[in-house]
């Protein structure tokens, strides 16, 4: 493995470049017109402008990306997260070109990308799934009948959805009737398919996921959990490991279940099994993410393992460097996603970052995509950086996080940093008592 093309942008492109540099691997960046001054473009060994700002003309343009890959004769392509990272057709095309795709088999991506098929596959493998449809819903009447049998509230979801888009919580039949057509229309516009399904809404839930890894030799391991319950608009904002809520018994059961799920699809490379956990610690399969997760640094900090390095080794046909018994968790890590957004309404706030600076204190890791004078354009996800704070204990990590945000300098655009300062003072957060409703149910003194 001598040269890797990164089909992504921002912090994750930079994150992958860093591991490649350590491994002595050359990197090829592809970027859109809007990103030409971004740090990942200058940091890569070579970089190519592949098109205009809208994602369909650049980061989702498979042919433009492959042209660069052919010209540069790269050995492998890393898709990062988002964009083409869960596109089975892309993975297949890359492999057909004789280039290694850094991720699972295309068949696995396809199977897990269909939320209904993935539910079926997991149920067959003995993994508990959220009560809901076994097939796509054909008519509104069918949706109402099904919702009635499992009792409201229910979630109406797009079959090919993800990233928190295309799902609506329905409190009663009127709400379901009102949401049905718009949800289908949005699913069509956003994911290209208007198929929807209904799932029981689990209230007072936590969103906890298990990191798994597999190789091409039949080895599969888990790398502990991440608690990602603190969300806004069904998108994660704070993630931590270990979960401050789960008992060890439930954790171990979840790890075994995640391994069974990985086994069911003969999983290779990095993957994440997402579970929803109710207040009694009953857990249900939500979905499987067949790629590197945004919040993977949390796992890296508690295990000391470079997950991107493992991804590259596995794609190169090597065995997993460690067996399950050698993978240990130590200390506590919390990740805060710093977004260019209004901290009260959560609406995006693009613009020029005049100043971005922080104290590089003990236990502080910042995976950034932008620097001072970078411009956050309205074309992509508004995440500026991930601030990962480590401590020997949860209390120590929280103490360091308070210090980090008190000294963080970010000027020129609005960000959610003021929200983190408030969350870090909040009694329930400090005690680890929170569910996915945390940010919506509480009022924070930010404006």
């Amino acid at each position, binding site marked *: 493995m001598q040269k890797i093309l990164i089909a992504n942008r921002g912090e994750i492109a930079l994150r992958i470049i860093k591991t490649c540099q350590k491994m002595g691997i050359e990197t090829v960046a592809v970027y859109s017109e809007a990103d030409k001054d971004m740090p990942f473009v200058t940091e890569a060994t070579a970089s190519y402008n592949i098109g205009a700002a809208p994602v369909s003309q650049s980061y989702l343009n498979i042919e433009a990306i492959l042209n660069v890959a052919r010209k540069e004769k790269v050995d492998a392509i890393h898709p990062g997260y988002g964009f083409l990272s869960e596109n089975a057709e892309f993975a297949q095309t890359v492999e057909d070109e004789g280039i290694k795709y850094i991720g699972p088999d295309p068949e696995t991506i396809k199977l897990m990308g269909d939320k209904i098929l993935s539910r079926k596959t997991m149920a067959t493998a003995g993994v508990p799934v959220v009560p809901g449809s076994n097939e796509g819903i054909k008519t509104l009447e069918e949706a109402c009948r099904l919702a009635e049998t499992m009792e409201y509230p229910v979630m109406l979801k797009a079959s090919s959805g993800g990233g928190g888009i295309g799902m609506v919580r329905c409190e009663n039949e009127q709400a379901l009737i009102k949401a049905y057509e718009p949800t289908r229309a949005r699913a069509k*516009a956003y994911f290209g398919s208007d198929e929807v399904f209904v799932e029981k809404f689990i209230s007072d839930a936590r969103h906890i996921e298990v990191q798994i890894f597999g190789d091409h030799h039949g080895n599969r391991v888990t790398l502990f959990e991440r608690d990602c319950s603190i969300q806004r608009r069904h998108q994660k904002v704070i993630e931590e490991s270990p979960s401050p809520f789960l008992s060890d018994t439930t954790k171990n059961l979840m790890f075994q279940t995640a391994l069974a799920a990985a086994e069911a699809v003969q999983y290779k490379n990095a993957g994440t099994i997402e579970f929803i956990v109710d207040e009694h610690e009953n857990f249900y399969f939500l979905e499987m993410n067949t790629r590197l997760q945004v919040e993977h640094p949390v796992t890296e900090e508690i295990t000391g393992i470079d997950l991107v390095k493992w991804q590259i080794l596995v794609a190169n046909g090597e065995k997993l460097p460690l067996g399950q018994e050698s993978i240990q968790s130590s200390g506590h890590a919390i990740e805060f996603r710093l977004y260019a957004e209004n901290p009260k309404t959560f609406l*995006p706030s693009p613009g020029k970052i005049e100043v971005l600076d922080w104290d590089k204190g003990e236990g502080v890791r910042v995976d950034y995509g932008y620097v001072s004078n970078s411009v956050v354009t*309205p074309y992509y996800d508004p995440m500026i950086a991930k601030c990962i704070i480590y401590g020997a204990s949860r209390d120590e990590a929280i103490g360091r996080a308070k210090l980090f945000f008190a000294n963080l300098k970010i000027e020129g655009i609005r960000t959610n940093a003021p929200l983190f300062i408030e969350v870090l003072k909040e009694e329930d957060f400090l005690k680890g008592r929170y569910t996915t409703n945390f940010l919506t149910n509480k009022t924070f003194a930010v404006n």
Partner: protein
Amino acid sequence: MKEISASMAGTVLNVMVAAGEEVTAGQEVFMLESMKMEIPIESNESGKVAELKVNIGDFVNEGDILLVLE
């Protein structure tokens, strides 16, 4: 002629009104998706929809006209 334009660049996720329909100030008329978020677009005036300039799935730039009121 009054116009409603996009407050941000993004993809049109939903069009909540049809040509000929009466809208009131503050009514949500479009849902855009931008930066992985749903951004509601409200009408700033009351009036009758004369023309819709975009369809679901279209990409719009900041300032593009989405709808014209009579």
